[in-house]
């Protein structure tokens, strides 16, 4: 068994090396041609350029392909010598995937190039047939610029569908109608998105349904809904209920969201309206309010935990003796967290709202002034409705951001609870915190289930807000 694999491996390796060498040679050739092309006549140059392009594209793609194959083969070899066959299948899949992914554009390129070549010949044929066979029925037409009609005339192959003897067009952008090239440009992005965005999405959903999933080996015993039962505290696991998710993660997240988002939006609205009415130092103050955006979240979180320390400045100012962070009660520990989140999320909102405010037509305000409308009414009846697209936008983004709160908890509390890393009860945990802490511990399926839950909530929020917006938002 192992021997045949080794032989296949050897053959593959040789083929890949030959391909790689060929690719290198073709790329070098392409570069040599550039030098030659510059001093040829126009027509010949055109042909040479196509050749060069073909060589470059083919050389590059084959080279990348061969390099990948060599890389994977090397990995395979190491895997085989380990005699551990678990990872083996994975690499086989990777090889297959790469071959298919890279072969498709290659095949497309090859097909397209042949088609292009035929097209060129067709046009030449057309021209000849026009001149010799039926000079009466067709008017004498040359490709090029027609002065009388002010159009560019292009000859097109009669074998094309919907054929016409000639087509009169304006300037037609034929060069950008390049099928295979678009895919070539998109190729790296598509591969990366497929590997690191789409595959994980599907895989995470899959893991959330897998029973006894072992992330080290990728083994599992069938599909089940148990994981969701476990995280919602319905299904017993080892005769005990897992309650951290329902008891701490979800309530904390919801609380944070519904406290911080309205406060932050309200504050941002007031600040940006006030900022907008300023005459002097407006730019400077705007910059000051933007500063929290350009900070390291962890660094400033540390500062907040110092400020809210038991012997910190907040307790000193208010002459209190509360434990805000370390060893605090859950309700009290929420306060610095909320303040931090609001502080950190203000700049983005102010920026968006301010740019919205500056786009509002001044005539509305002048009309209101003529009617001697009170200021609060101007704010409620003119500013807020006209700002509603921006407000909706920041509402959606900040709701989603608040549901994903994680770094702030780590930065301030240094752990899942108010006792830092030693906390037994994860009373400050958020949903995302739950996901991460279970990813690195061995409960990947629970983490996946929680992530799917988060995903669904975020999708729901987005849809509901778009629904509402279509009715309420004033555009």
């Amino acid at each position, binding site marked *: 068994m192992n021997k045949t694999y080794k032989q296949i491996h050897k053959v593959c390796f040789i083929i890949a090396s030959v391909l790689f060498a060929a690719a290198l040679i073709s790329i070098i050739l392409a570069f040599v041609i550039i030098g030659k092309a510059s001093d040829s006549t126009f027509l010949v140059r055109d042909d040479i350029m196509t050749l060069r*392009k073909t060589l470059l594209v083919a050389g590059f793609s084959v080279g990348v392909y061969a390099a990948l194959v060599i890389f994977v083969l090397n990995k395979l070899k190491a895997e085989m010598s380990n005699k551990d066959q678990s990872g083996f299948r994975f690499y086989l899949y990777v090889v297959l995937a790469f071959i298919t992914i890279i072969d498709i554009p290659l095949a497309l390129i090859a097909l397209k190039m042949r088609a292009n070549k035929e097209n060129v010949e067709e046009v030449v044929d057309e021209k000849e047939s026009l001149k010799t066979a039926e000079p009466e029925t067709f008017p004498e037409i040359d490709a090029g610029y027609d002065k009388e009609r002010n159009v560019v005339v292009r000859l097109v192959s009669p074998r094309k569908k919907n054929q016409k003897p000639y087509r009169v067009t304006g300037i037609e952008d034929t060069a950008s109608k*390049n099928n295979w*090239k678009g895919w070539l440009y*998109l190729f790296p*992005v598509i591969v*990366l*998105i497929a*590997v*690191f*965005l789409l595959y*994980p*999405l599907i*895989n*995470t959903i899959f*893991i959330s349904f897998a029973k006894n999933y072992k*992330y080290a080996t*990728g083994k599992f015993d069938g599909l089940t809904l148990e994981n969701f039962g476990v995280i919602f505290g319905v299904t017993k696991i080892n005769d005990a209920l897992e309650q951290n998710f329902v008891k701490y993660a979800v309530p904390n997240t919801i609380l944070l969201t519904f406290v911080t988002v309205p406060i932050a939006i309200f504050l941002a609205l007031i600040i940006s309206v*006030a900022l907008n*009415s*300023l*005459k002097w130092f407006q730019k400077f103050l705007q910059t000051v*309010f*933007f*500063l*929290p955006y*350009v*900070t390291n979240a*962890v*660094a*400033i979180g*540390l*500062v*907040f935990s*110092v*400020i809210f*320390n038991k*012997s*910190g400045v907040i307790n*000193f100012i208010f002459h209190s003796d509360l434990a805000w962070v370390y060893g605090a009660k859950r309700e009290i520990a929420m306060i610095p967290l909320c303040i931090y989140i609001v502080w950190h999320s203000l700049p983005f909102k102010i920026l*968006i709202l301010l*740019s919205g405010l500056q786009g509002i037509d001044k005539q509305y305000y002048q009309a209101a002034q003529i009617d001697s409308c009170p200021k609060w009414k101007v704010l409620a009846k003119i500013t807020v409705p006209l700002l509603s697209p921006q407000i909706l*936008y920041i509402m959606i983004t900040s709701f*989603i951001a608040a549901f994903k709160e*994680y*770094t702030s908890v*780590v*930065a301030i509390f*240094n752990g899942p609870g108010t006792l830092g890393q030693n906390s037994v009860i994860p009373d400050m945990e958020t949903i*995302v915190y739950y*996901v991460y802490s279970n*990813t*690195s511990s061995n409960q*990947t399926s629970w*983490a996946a289930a929680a*992530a*799917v839950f*988060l*995903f669904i909530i*975020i*999708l729901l929020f987005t849809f509901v807000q778009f629904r509402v917006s279509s009715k309420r938002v004033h555009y």
Partner: protein
Amino acid sequence: MAEEVLTETLEPKKYINFKKVRVNPNIVLSIEEAGKTVDAIKSTEKVAKIVTTILTYLFILVLALTVLFPFYWMIITSLKQRTEIIATNQTFFPNIVMWSNYSYVFSVFDFTGYMFNTIIVAIFSTAGTLLTTIFAAFAFARLQFKGRDAVFAIFLMTMMIPGEMMVISNYLTVSAFGWISDQTRLEAYLCMIVPFVVSVFHIYLLRQNFKQIPNELYLAAKVDGKSDWAFLWKVMVPLAAPTLISVTILKFMGTWNSYVWPQLVTKNDDFRLISNGLRGSAFQDIDTGQVEYGFQMAASVCVTVPLFLLFIFFRKYIMKGVGRAGIKG
């Protein structure tokens, strides 16, 4: 001139006092500013305006100081002695300025090491992102091929997926690549760079920018015999430079702030990024387990200052890049 004459002739008559004039017994005219002269109204308005201006400035100033307070406290604390930090009487300026806190950051806490890692990861992931973003944006904005709009729609939809969703599987993927077990420095960097060299949002941003470049430029380049490739690098990229700078800076800041993923994938403290270092255990006294806040704050200042410098120099680009998102609404 005419107005002056008018007011002079009206002067002896003063203004009609509407309180005393009954036009019709059924209709009561009431005017708020009755009995006041125009000058009086103007002056009260002026006073009201000055008062509101002062009040707004006060309000904004107070809020601005609140926003700035954490920064101030960070700097102050970084210069304080340990005893002063935990004293019951907090001081708003350090009694003894402790510059030695900073020397600790550079000597005991491996600040330069973390910084090196962060900068390497930031440079490579930014370069990768720029490259993929330019290619994809060019394909979406300029080239025409079947399925382009469908692919773009799928790309946009992926923006709705929370990144947390991907972390689990991406962790499994990079460990399947063999980058987690027996991690070398290169593998650690690969873990932190490769999954982040593509950003759909930035592609969207750049595509919008590329679309604004007029078609005529493209056709002119074609007439001059330039290829797509040359057009992309010689015309489109220079024209979209402001957006590209915004993308670069935002990406750089993103790496500077990234905490979770590096924490998850790196197995050795030497390979971690600056945020992980800050939240690590380097500032805990080994004997007492208490946190040395002075050192911690000094390190925080060292992390924050480069970002501020970046912000001062590229304020326009950062704010534009962040604000660009709002146009969608």
